[in-house]
């Protein structure tokens, strides 16, 4: 089943006309409602009334995560606050988080694209979905929730964590669809076996996994562990949350819902369009969003794209799994983490910045573990274990507050963190995906 067949299978002429139509309305809307963008567009010499076709998009300036940070919180809003119905935030590179706001129409759009996601994965109305993405400010939980509601699925909003309870609920309600991060899916399978439950038995049909990069070998592992079809979903809060692209049953690239999220692949060095099929940075324009529409947003995700029609019938462009990043962001348990966030915390605690290193590992139990090594310095060393433990605990709590991810903090001796040309190596990622 294809949720919006008329649009998802539209021929390229029709699709282009639709996109052009949206862009023609979008640019004047933004220009007249968002002073920050007006300045940006003026500076780039863009006359909003001269936008005639989606091809004109190449003349528009990029929007970056820094833009979102610099104009935090409301600077990039095109809709007035009283039309904003819901707010989410995701990690920012430093102190300020990245803010997203949804109008009523944006929430409808979100429900619609997430219904397309679930349908594309193979869900059918009446199926039960267990949503084990985190609910709250993180877009994962509520995004799936809205899509499932729109599609008419039965929802079990377990949110993330509390694995024993997740497994108990699975047994009791036999959901056919599971939504969570891929690493959590593997972790739950392990836990199930330990509790004497055979995860391959039963009711499963599909998993819709995302919010962190994962590989084909993880896919095979998950499919074998749960006896289900494991599909990949892509999205980011700045654009809408989950719901930008999704794999169909052929698992041959993620269908971008390009009628509303227009994708471009560029060479991050030159900012020029990358040749078809080549790796490049994914850039997205939200063609119909009202609250915070974004023009040519640099996702910093490296992907490649293909444009031919898929066997499933969808004509939308397909992107590969994420192959890398253009920055030093890492994704831990579905949460985006920037080393600069941790740096910010340490400066706040000790006044000056001690040497630190972030070690990410995924051990046998499949969950990401973050260890932050902090070099002990003379001025905060104390003879009393209690004080050192308090310090460790304070650092741990503050980092956890900022990242929303639990971390382990280890105090280490000075000069033990590996340095390359004087500068400490900030991230050691030991995970094999």
């Amino acid at each position, binding site marked *: 089943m294809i949720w919006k067949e008329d649009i998802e299978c539209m021929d390229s002429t029709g699709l282009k006309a639709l996109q052009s139509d949206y862009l023609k309305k979008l640019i004047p809307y933004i220009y007249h409602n968002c002073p920050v963008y007006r300045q940006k567009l003026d500076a780039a010499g863009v006359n909003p009334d001269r936008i005639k076709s989606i091809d004109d998009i190449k003349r528009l300036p990029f929007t970056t995560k820094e833009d979102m940070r610099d104009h935090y919180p409301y600077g990039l809003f095109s809709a007035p606050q009283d039309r904003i119905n819901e707010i989410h935030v995701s990690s920012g590179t430093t102190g300020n988080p990245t803010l997203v706001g949804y109008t009523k129409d944006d929430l409808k759009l979100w429900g619609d694209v997430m219904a397309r996601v679930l349908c594309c994965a193979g869900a059918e109305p009446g199926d039960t979905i267990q949503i084990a993405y985190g609910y709250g400010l993180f877009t994962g939980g509520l995004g799936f929730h809205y899509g499932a509601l729109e599609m008419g699925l039965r929802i079990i909003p377990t949110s993330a964590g509390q694995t024993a309870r997740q497994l108990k609920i699975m047994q009791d309600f036999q959901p056919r669809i599971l939504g969570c991060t891929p690493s959590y899916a593997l972790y739950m399978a392990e836990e199930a076996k330990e509790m004497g439950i055979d995860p391959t038995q039963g009711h499963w049909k599909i998993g819709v996994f995302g919010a962190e990069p994962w590989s084909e070998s993880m896919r095979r592992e998950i499919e074998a562990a749960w006896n289900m079809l494991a599909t990949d979903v892509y999205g980011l809060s700045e654009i809408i949350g989950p719901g930008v692209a999704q794999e169909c049953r052929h698992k041959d690239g993620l269908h971008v819902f390009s009628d509303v999220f227009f994708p471009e692949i560029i060479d991050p060095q030159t900012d020029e369009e990358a040749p078809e099929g080549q790796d490049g940075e994914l850039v997205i324009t939200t063609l119909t969003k009202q609250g915070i529409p974004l023009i040519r947003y640099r996702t910093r995700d490296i992907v490649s794209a293909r444009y031919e029609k898929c066997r499933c019938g969808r004509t939308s462009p397909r992107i590969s799994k994420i192959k890398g990043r253009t920055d030093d962001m890492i994704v831990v348990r579905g949460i985006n983490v920037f080393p600069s966030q941790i740096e910010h915390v340490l400066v706040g605690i000790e006044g000056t910045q001690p040497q630190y290193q972030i070690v990410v590992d995924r051990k046998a139990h499949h969950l990401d573990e973050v260890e932050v090594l902090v070099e*002990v*310095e*003379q001025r905060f*060393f*104390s*003879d*009393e*274990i209690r004080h*050192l*433990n308090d310090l460790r605990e304070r650092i741990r709590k503050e980092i956890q507050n900022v990242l929303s991810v639990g971390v382990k903090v*280890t*105090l*280490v*001796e*000075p*000069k*033990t963190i590996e340095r390359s040309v004087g500068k400490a190596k900030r991230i050691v990622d030991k995970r094999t995906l």
Partner: protein
Amino acid sequence: MKITQISVFLENRKGRLYDVCSLLGANHVNIRALTIAETESFGVLRIVVDKCDAAVKLLRDNGFVANFTDVVAVEVPDTPGGLATVLKIFADNDVNVEYMYGFVEKHSDKALLVFRFEDTDTAQQVLARHSISIVTRQEIEGL
């Protein structure tokens, strides 16, 4: 009289204790008393040495994190119940002991113990009132 203890931060890694001891040994610093407080991932080595200032400089120069702490070295009769007698005096006088450990060697027929008190000054007064002798810095250096 207070004496000075050196505290050294140590990761729980193989050979770290050896590194400290060999460094001190090679530079003719003699360890008089020693204990290690451990946690899951790190420990704090506490030592009393004969050449305190030199030892700390040496340690810091070699990349260790080391600090001074005031402690009191107390002579305790080396007989059954000897320590208990002293501890009872502390308990009766509301003197709180943070931690304590023993010296490597004996001092005549007495045992020597290092005490870290919550309030060192009060503790010293109590010890004096009860005529319990404490060991001076000079004595430590001469041991």
